[in-house]
Each structure stands twice: as structure tokens, then as C-alpha cells.
């Protein structure tokens, strides 16, 4: 029996597989399909201090091997989450609250509100689909460090993950800036900004014109970025970007991720996460790996 447990920032997860923010709501809908307590953790839909309506539709498009989304942080607000979903979700597995705001103060406010209530806070400074906040704070090292510092100072007990944008001059420089600002962990990659055009209408498919590209097609870029970042910082890294099966997860672990998140594949296959967990155990078993954490960062360069 392979030991699938991983420990990140002193918090033990039963396995390293986590549904990514935005693909999974607060877990209730997927719980109708399978028991979500099998998951290592659940990363919530991006939360903001106030409820948000998000962008106009269409909010999703498809291209070869990828999707584009521009939901625009629609969410019921952090208070609604605390009141209606948090206790239920905590009864199932570890909870990562993904948070965003309009400005730096918003980030501090929402972190203070969730401190001590969740297992991790993931700072979303990489959403490409909102005008203020989101990615605007996540492209330059100085602003990454600043928002991280504000968020960290609002937290007494909950470890802070900073989710990095791939739409940056240097993701590694931003990772180091997050570490400098006090982040306990970084996660990457969020989506790549892209566009799809309906050639019959000569208009972008998405009402927002551009959206975040995710899915299998971005995986090699994400693996490279996770590899580079894991060597640029000392804090743990959570990897994601196009993971569709257990072998993909192994790739990210070898690249340097301590755990992985799965987004788009939940749409392709609603049972993706439990299948990846089972597949991971089977892969380790057949390769004589006793602890899944032994795989982390073991890739050897040619």
C-alpha cells in the first residue's frame, strides 16, 4: 500500500489531489456524484468580500485541447460561504479558500475574515477575467510582494498560498516576490490569457472577448513553470495546468510540486479526481514507490 499522504505547511492531506478553484464550486454538486471526502482538499470558488455577479455570457469556449473561461469571479461573497458551506465542507476534507478582491485592502480584509476558519488561504492574484484586482496585482514582482505582505499580516494561524499567473515576465521572479512577502506556499499556473474567434460572426466567442486558457494543451508549459519555480523558492509548490490523469500528476510531482490541482478535467470527466487518486496509488505501487511524497522534485535534467 502506497502512502499517499503529503504535508504542506504542516497540514497533512490524505493525498495530493485537489480540485482547482472555479471548477468545483464549494463541492456540493460533485458530492452528488461521489464522496468528496476522498479528496486531499477542496479549493473553493474564488471568494470576494462582497457577492459578485461576474461577466456576461458566453463565459466559456473551446479550442483544440483547451478551454477558455471568463466567469469573472461570480460568487456569493465570503459571508455566505462561511454561513452556508464552510462547516459542511470542513466535515469532508481540508479546505483551501481561494480569495480575491478589488484592491490590496480587500485582500487583507478577506484574509482576516477567514483566518483560523479554513486550512489554507489561496490568494488569487492571477485571475485574467476581472478589471480590477485579480491579475493586475499578480504580474509584477513588487505588487506580488506587496499584496502578499498585506494578506500575510492579516493572518495569525492559516497558511497562505499565493496563486501565480503565467502571464508574467518571470513567474520565478514573482514566486520569489511572494516568498519574500511571507507566502507559505505558491500554486501555479493559473490560466493563460487567450482569445477564440467565431469566424462566422467575426467576433470573439467569449462576451468578455478574452478569457483564461486551461486544459491538457497547456500542460507542458505548466510543467516547465512548476519546475523552474520549485527551484527558485524554498517554500512548497502546488502544481496545476492540464492534469487529466494520474501520470500527469506524477509529472507535476517530479517537476517539484508537493500536491496538484485539477481543473478543466472535472468538466471532461466528472469523476476525474477520484480516478487520479486511484491511478496515483496504482502507479506508485507498480513503480515501487512507497510514499508519494518521495516523488516530489525527483526529475533529473538531461
Amino acid at each position, binding site marked *: 500500500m502506497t502512502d499517499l499522504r503529503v504535508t504542506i505547511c504542516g497540514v497533512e492531506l490524505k493525498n495530493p489531489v485537489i480540485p482547482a478553484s*472555479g*471548477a*468545483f*464550486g464549494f463541492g*456540493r*454538486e*460533485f458530492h*452528488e*456524484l461521489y464522496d468528496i471526502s476522498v479528496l486531499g482538499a477542496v479549493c473553493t*470558488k474564488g471568494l470576494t468580500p462582497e457577492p459578485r*455577479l*461576474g461577466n456576461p*455570457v*458566453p*463565459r*466559456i*469556449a*473551446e479550442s483544440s*485541447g*483547451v*478551454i477558455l*473561461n471568463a*466567469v469573472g469571479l*461570480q*460568487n456569493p461573497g465570503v459571508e455566505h460561504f462561511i454561513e452556508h458551506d464552510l462547516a459542511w465542507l470542513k466535515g469532508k476534507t481540508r479546505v483551501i479558500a481561494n480569495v480575491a478582491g478589488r484592491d490590496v485592502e480587500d485582500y487583507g480584509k478577506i484574509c482576516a475574515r477567514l483566518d483560523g476558519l479554513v486550512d489554507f488561504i489561496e490568494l488569487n492574484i492571477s485571475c485574467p477575467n476581472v478589471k480590477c484586482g485579480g491579475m493586475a496585482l499578480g504580474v509584477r514582482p513588487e505588487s506580488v510582494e506587496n499584496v502578499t505582505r498585506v494578506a500575510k499580516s492579516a493572518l495569525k494561524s492559516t497558511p497562505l498560498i499565493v496563486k501565480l499567473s503565467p502571464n508574467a515576465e518571470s513567474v520565478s521572479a514573482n514566486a520569489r516576490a511572494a516568498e519574500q512577502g511571507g507566502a507559505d506556499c505558491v500554486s501555479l499556473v493559473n490560466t493563460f490569457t487567450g482569445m477564440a474567434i467565431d469566424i462566422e460572426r467575426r467576433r470573439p466567442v467569449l462576451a468578455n472577448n478574452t478569457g483564461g486558457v486551461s*486544459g*491538457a494543451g497547456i500542460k507542458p508549459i505548466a510543467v516547465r513553470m512548476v519546475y523552474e519555480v520549485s527551484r527558485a523558492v524554498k517554500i512548497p509548490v502546488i502544481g496545476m495546468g492540464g492534469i487529466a490523469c494520474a501520470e500527469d500528476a506524477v509529472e507535476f510531482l517530479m517537476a517539484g510540486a508537493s500536491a496538484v490541482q485539477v481543473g*478543466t478535467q*472535472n*468538466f*471532461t*470527466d*466528472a*469523476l476525474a479526481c477520484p480516478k487520479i487518486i486511484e491511478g496515483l496509488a496504482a502507479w506508485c505501487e507498480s513503480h515501487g514507490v512507497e510514499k508519494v511524497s518521495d516523488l516530489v522534485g525527483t526529475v533529473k535534467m538531461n
Partner: protein
Amino acid sequence: MREIIATVLENKKIAEETYSLTFACDEAVKVRAGQFVMVGINGFPLRRPIAVCKAEGERVTVCYRLKGEGTRRLASSYSRGEKLSVLLPLGNGFYVGEKEKRVALVGGGVGIFPLVSVIRAYAESKEIYSYMGFRNKAAICMQFEMQRGKELTIATDDGSVGYRGTSVQAFMENIDRVKPDVVLSCGPTPMLRALKSAMSGRNIPTYVSLEERMGCGIGACLVCVCDLTDGKHARVCKDGPVFEIGEVIL
């Protein structure tokens, strides 16, 4: 709601650019009229939401129009015996109350298919008056199924068959004679908009089934929202696809 690896029994063209796909699930499934299925197509990251036309025991039939690469792949690669990943049943579906005896159906384009499931469910217990709109003669299908109601009016844009005009126009010419207790509709948004303005002030409960590009299909991702008149958003896949017409902004 379950994810099922079904087996394709038949996938055939029934009208111009329109296909009927019947698959067998591993066991009998309960699907309400107006519910839908998310169909997985190999090589495409997103499943396609398709309304259920017929569900009997473990056999389910959905109909779709060729719209893009995904539906073309579905039509060309999934013949009898192929495995098909489906998520079902999804959405709220249509509901006809005890007291509602006279039911009017107003459909257009692929919107006729979820209404066919209403005819199947209520043909025995209700008086069903159907107004179904098609582009032209070549697009007409499911006539046999649609005739199981009390009355069927087919409308075509070019007048090649039946009423010349839209199904909404055909319905409004008959509404005072038919006196429906409830109106159920599905079709392109301009059609639903026309129905909404035609029905305003009539005080007849009217329900519409909406179509939107979807992500997960189960209510988690908030991709397929519609605007409600109270300023909020609803999820088409989970809170709908059927809404009271006055409750949504079309």
C-alpha cells in the same frame, strides 16, 4: 445524477443537419421531461449538453443539430456499439401540475426536442396543443411523436409546410380558442422573447427552457448563468434549464 458509460444503439440523421442518438445505460434511468444529458465526445474537453427526447428503461434518446466540430464528431464517430460517456439526468425539467389540463407547447428548431419529451410524458393525461417551428420542409422531424398530442400545428419560415411564419405566431392565432392552462416553450432566444411579449398581461403560467454554453453541467462552475428580473443570476444547468418566463431576462 450519475456518470454512465453507455452503449450507442443508434445514431442516425433524421432531418437536415439533425441527428437522433439512442444509447443504452447500464440500468434503467429516471429522466423527467425537459431534463438534459452532458455527452462526452472523445478529444473534446467540454461535454455537450443535449436535451432528452425520450427515456424508456435504460434507453435514452437525445437529438442534436450539427453546430460545430464537436457535434460533427458525435455524428461521425459514434455508431452502434461505441461507448459513450454521459452525465444524467441533469436540470429541473418541465413540470405540469395536477390542475393544468390544457397544455400548449411552443417550440422552434432544436427546441422542439425537449417538448417531445413533454408529449411523451403527458399525452395520456393532458390535452396537448403543439406549435412547432422549423426553417423549412427539410428540417421537419419527429412528426409521428408530435402527433401524439391532441393537436399539432407545424410552422415553417418559408411556408413549405403548414403555417407560414413562426410557431409563436401560429400559437397566438389559436390561443383564445385553445385556452391553455400552461404554456411550455423552448427555442432560440428571439423566439422566446417574442413569446414573452405576446404573453404579457395574459396571466397564463408560461415556462421556457433556456440554452447556454456550459462547463460542468451540474451547477459547480457558474459558466452558464442567465439574468433574473430580480437582479440575480441563475445557473441554467442546475436551477434551470426551465424557468418561469417572467423570472428571466431574455
